[in-house]
């Protein structure tokens, strides 16, 4: 089966689920030839060079990535044509007969959103999901510090950042993966998400709320720490659609190291 035919199976399944394939979408082939014969499929949060190497070594020549391959949302490569890092990555893909396809917009369209479900499962929060409010989790009472320590331990995250009073009481948490950190409002204690613009959002709100005695917090997991796990859910979703091809998860992992 070719990469193109694999994508056809995905599109057919989405159609059965009532999700129409969008005409305007970033979910397209990013590198390699769609007619390439697929030996194995690796899903990942981001098709970094390291992910491509590990996928190739594991016999997975078709990588399905949630985030871009070439460092910008539209995967525009015009400004990168003469860049040695870009050139080396393209060469590696070609030399190893690889294909890269992005599965972003349509992954978020699935119900439940696998990117949210994947993070919730890793965090052990699935049973705390609010039955009526999407993305809200009602946790057993804890503090921001305890919650952050628990989250970092479960995800094995080294570069997780937290804002807000460590001793604040927490029960109502809003969870949003990637760049969609939920907006903090008076009905939410803590927002947990991937990454966010550091101005024009939750951080100022937390500081201003604290000045008025309202305690709010945010836990920024990092983009990959919040979406890599969701692509494991996508691998599980994909497997029965292509029973003739091995499907595995190739995590991108946390890009950061920290130091003291």
């Amino acid at each position: 089966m070719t990469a193109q035919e694999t994508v056809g199976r995905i599109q057919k399944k989405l159609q059965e689920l009532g999700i129409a394939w969008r005409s305007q979408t970033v979910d397209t082939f990013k590198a390699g030839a769609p007619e390439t014969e697929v030996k194995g499929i690796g899903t990942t949060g981001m098709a970094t060079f390291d992910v491509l190497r590990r996928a190739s070594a594991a016999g997975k020549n078709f990588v399905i990535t949630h985030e871009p391959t070439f460092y910008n949302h539209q995967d525009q490569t015009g400004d990168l044509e003469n860049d040695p890092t870009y050139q080396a990555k393209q060469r590696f893909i070609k030399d190893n007969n690889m294909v890269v396809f992005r599965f972003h917009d349509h992954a978020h369209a699935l119900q439940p959103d696998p990117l949210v479900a994947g993070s919730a499962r890793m965090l052990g929060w699935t049973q705390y999901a609010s039955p009526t409010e999407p993305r809200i989790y009602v946790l057993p009472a804890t503090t921001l510090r305890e919650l952050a320590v628990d989250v970092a331990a479960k995800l094995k995250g080294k570069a997780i950042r937290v804002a807000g009073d460590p001793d604040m009481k927490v029960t109502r948490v809003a969870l949003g993966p990637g760049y969609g950190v939920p907006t903090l409002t008076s009905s939410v204690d803590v927002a947990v998400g991937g990454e966010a613009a550091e101005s024009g959002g939750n951080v100022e709100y937390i500081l201003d709320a604290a000045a008025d005695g309202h305690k709010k917090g945010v836990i920024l997991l990092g983009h990959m720490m919040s979406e890599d796990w969701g692509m494991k859910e996508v691998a599980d979703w994909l497997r029965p659609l292509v029973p003739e091809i091995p499907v595995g998860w190739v995590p991108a992992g946390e890009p950061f190291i920290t130091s003291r």
Partner: protein
Amino acid sequence: MADRIRANLGVAWRSQTVDGFRAGEPSTAVTGIAVTVLATTDVLRRAAAAGQNLIITQEPLYYATNDDPGNRAKDPVYLAKKALIDEQHLIVFRFTEHWNARQPNEAAKALAAALKWTSEVSGAPQTYRISETSLEGLAAQVRSRLPIRGGLRIVGQAGLQVRTVYLAPGTTSLAMAVTSLQKADAVLAGEPREWEAVPYTLDTWSSNPGKGLIAIGRMVSEGPGMSACAAWLRSIVPEVRVESLPVMDPYWSVNA
């Protein structure tokens, strides 16, 4: 005051800009000026207590780039901030695009000064030669010289040898990383996007030993630039007291 800024800036005032009055009555007589990266409620209270009724801020006032509170329009935190500004007759002026348009880049120059880096590489603006150290050693140096709590993150191999660093305070774009890393060993960034400059730097490891990136956060990276802005304002309005009100690193880390 705003007219004085425009006249002395050396940069043409843009017709489309986020800079300008965001709250208060522009005809109010200025009793004192507070300059800050972020006009938080705490900063506004400190300014009001010190008799400074004009607050000049780099970042937005009301939690959005266009200062539209959106779904927070009835939120008690937003309403309390708005009431504070009204009651204290404060004026908030946003000054970011035009301050950052000055050449050479004021924020980078001020950040270098805060880091005690003096050797700018000729022909490579915002790039500094430093005493050779590892990427991890550089992170330790940055941590010791800037008010960082939990917001510092490193991309790259800890042992990477660093001799030249490009300073990119504020938002750090992909184009900045791609261009500057041709000449520098590492980028000291404010806020890089994790699908742009971060994976780009990660992928440079394909050619050993690759490059490095240290992200320190937007507010910490812009702090020295706004102190420099306060000094500049003092020079153009000597008759008014101008104070710089710093904002600390908003983040902490469980690993710190």
